[in-house]
């Protein structure tokens, strides 16, 4: 076996020959399908589901390829492969998404088999990034590193990947199915906005137990997921999830795609009845077949590389001294890092949102640089975040300033994580065939307007999320300020929602009033933020002030400019 621990990829599961054979067969199969389409043997209607199963969409200007980054983890070798694809087959760009995936916007159908072959060489693919299957499982971006983590969720995320990939029963669900998993008491995965959200922690004998949330989602009908089960033992994880998906598969609506997600089923049955059906299914299953034995889990865990976390004893002191010496660095550490479980280390968040830039867009050169920095500073390991940023998970504290210098030089050192510049925006009408309005230009104007880092810190924690249509890919319902693009006779309008949140204090934003024309939207949001700065008390954040005062105080600011 080639599982020599020295060669295992840090933070990820090492593919074995079975995985690799599967990927290469899949590429060959798709190449054949593309050939048949080009020869005219397959109609577009026949071909479309096949290309979607391989992550290939047709957008406004070209094909778009969505590449899976399982639970958001990748290695420097994989990032370099993405850079190569951006350079060779796209227009020098890639785009990080809130689903922790990467999208390429300028792909040619005829190149796609070659691209997939290239991806397969670094154990990557575009499977489970589209279609009515269990999608790529998402995970905490600080998994295995965060100081507040109770349990590394990636092992179980990988188990779910293996369970769900080409699961024969679940390739034709009523609708797509999204699972997120966290091992921290601080929800960074929006567990209650997923079809299934799992929160793991150590239980008896140190074996994990899971709280299971079900029926959350955004889109046309935003719903906060409900807790279906607490303390689910690890050994029953697959059986119980399979029972949930079976109930959904049997009862979910296939007649109306707007009512097809599991959230609608859970609402229609009520959580008690839904739970009864799941429990009944669970009771019928041969649990021995599904039993997640500790030996299986440990076998999966053994294929994950572990970083060798050795730091000099004075690493933390060095960082403190570096921070005192350089206020700009100090600011970036305040905004763009997260505490690591090892005191000599820290998690660094690379902002892919420069002032006035396109959220999530990276050039091929930046991808190569991120790969180099990951090799130099974080054991070759890279994480894509649900906020469309990148994390280097294990950076030695005494080496952080060096890293920061390099990020700043490459335009990747913007100190705005969690602040008004850290905007989530979907591709919107600039690329997306389903869009009503553009998302990116609003994000760019807001981020340019609030570029001043001092102002951003003064405003404090503020998530602005923008979607170009009701599908809500930009999570607008979960934004403290949400912006939704609507179409009025071919022109763009924007509807504002306030008070959404995706964390432990989960909430759905409420519409504040009529939609605004494009040229008034940014000014209205600026007035809203000014109003908050006047009304805030003590160390309140935007969401606190909003919750204390309600929408009325802000409504005037939006609709009645001085």
């Amino acid at each position: 076996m080639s599982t020599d621990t020295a060669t295992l990829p840090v933070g990820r599961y090492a593919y074995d020959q079975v995985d690799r054979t599967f990927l290469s067969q899949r590429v060959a199969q798709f190449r054949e399908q593309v050939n048949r389409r080009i020869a005219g043997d397959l109609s577009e209607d026949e071909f479309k589901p096949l290309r979607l199963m391989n992550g290939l969409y047709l957008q406004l200007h070209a094909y778009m390829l969505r590449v899976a980054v399982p639970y958001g983890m990748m290695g420097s070798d994989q990032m370099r492969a993405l850079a190569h694809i951006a350079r060779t087959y796209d227009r020098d760009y890639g785009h990080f998404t809130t689903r922790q995936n990467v999208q390429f916007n300028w792909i040619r159908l005829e190149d796609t088999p070659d691209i997939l072959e290239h991806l397969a060489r670094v154990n990557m693919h575009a499977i489970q990034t589209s279609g009515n299957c269990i999608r790529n499982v998402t995970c905490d971006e600080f998994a295995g590193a965060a100081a507040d983590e109770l349990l590394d969720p990636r092992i179980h995320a990988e188990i779910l990947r293996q369970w769900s990939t080409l699961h024969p029963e679940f390739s034709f669900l009523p609708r797509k199915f999204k699972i997120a998993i966290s091992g921290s008491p601080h929800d960074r995965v929006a567990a209650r906005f997923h079809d299934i959200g799992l929160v793991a922690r150590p239980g008896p004998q140190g074996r994990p137990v899971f709280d299971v949330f079900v029926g959350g989602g955004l889109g046309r009908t935003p719903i906060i997921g409900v807790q279906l089960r607490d303390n689910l033992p690890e050994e029953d994880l697959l059986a119980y999830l399979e029972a949930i998906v079976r109930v959904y598969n049997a009862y979910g609506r296939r007649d109306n795609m707007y009512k097809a997600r599991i959230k609608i089923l859970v609402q229609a049955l009520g959580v008690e009845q839904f739970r009864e059906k799941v429990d009944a299914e669970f009771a019928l299953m041969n649990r021995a077949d599904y039993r997640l034995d500790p030996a299986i889990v440990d076998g999966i865990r053994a294929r994950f590389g572990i970083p060798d976390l050795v730091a000099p004893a004075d690493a933390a002191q060095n960082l403190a001294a570096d921070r005192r010496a350089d206020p700009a660095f100090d600011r970036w550490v305040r905004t763009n890092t997260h505490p690591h479980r090892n005191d000599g280390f820290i998690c660094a968040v690379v902002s892919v949102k420069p002032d006035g830039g396109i959220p999530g867009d990276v050039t091929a050169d930046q991808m190569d640089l991120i790969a180099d920095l990951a090799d130099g500073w974080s054991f070759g390991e890279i994480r894509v975040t649900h906020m469309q940023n990148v994390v280097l998970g294990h950076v030695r504290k005494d080496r952080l300033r060096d890293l920061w210098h390099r990020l700043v030089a490459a335009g990747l050192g913007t100190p705005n994580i969690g602040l008004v510049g850290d905007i989530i925006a979907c591709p919107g009408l600039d690329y997306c065939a389903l869009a009503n309005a553009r998302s990116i230009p609003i994000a760019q104007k807001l981020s340019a307007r609030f570029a001043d880092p001092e102002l951003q810190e003064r405003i404090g924690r503020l998530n602005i999320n923008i979607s170009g249509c009701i599908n809500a890919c930009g999570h607008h319902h979960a934004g403290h300020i949400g912006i939704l693009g609507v179409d009025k006779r071919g022109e763009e309008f924007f509807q504002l929602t306030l008070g959404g949140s995706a964390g432990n204090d989960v909430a759905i934003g409420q519409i504040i009033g009529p939609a605004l024309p494009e040229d008034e939207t940014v000014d209205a949001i600026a007035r809203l933020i000014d109003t908050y700065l006047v009304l805030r008390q003590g160390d309140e954040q935007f969401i606190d002030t909003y919750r204390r005062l309600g929408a009325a105080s802000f409504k005037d600011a939006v609709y009645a400019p001085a």
Partner: protein
Amino acid sequence: MGASLHVWRLFVPVTAYYACCLERIGSQVDVRNNRRDTTGASVITANRLLDGRTVWLTQQGWSEQIAHARIFDNADVEDAIKQAKATPDARKLVGIYGVQLDPSAAGISPLTMRERIRAFGPSVHPDFAPVEISHVH
């Protein structure tokens, strides 16, 4: 056996030819964008099969430049779309439909923002505006 959980290792792999909901959403978008007034003028558009690029029907074939597009009276455009769909060229295209023009625009310019973006490229990347590379022929 190792610690493998791959269900697809245990079952015969199925290639599910499942209908995709996106298709239905997509066709609704087409309906929305295919709406037109009884009067006015339109052009005809599609995406090229091989590379997905946006193209416009001209007097002779299809061009990436809307400026070269052939203009139809709205009264005639349905027939013209039908004809375009019946030509051999149609096999190399995806989603042929009509786009109403803005009568007040200086040159040929669609009425809706969506179609203006298809015609002139993403507004956030002026450097990615379509350039004349090739025709379908």
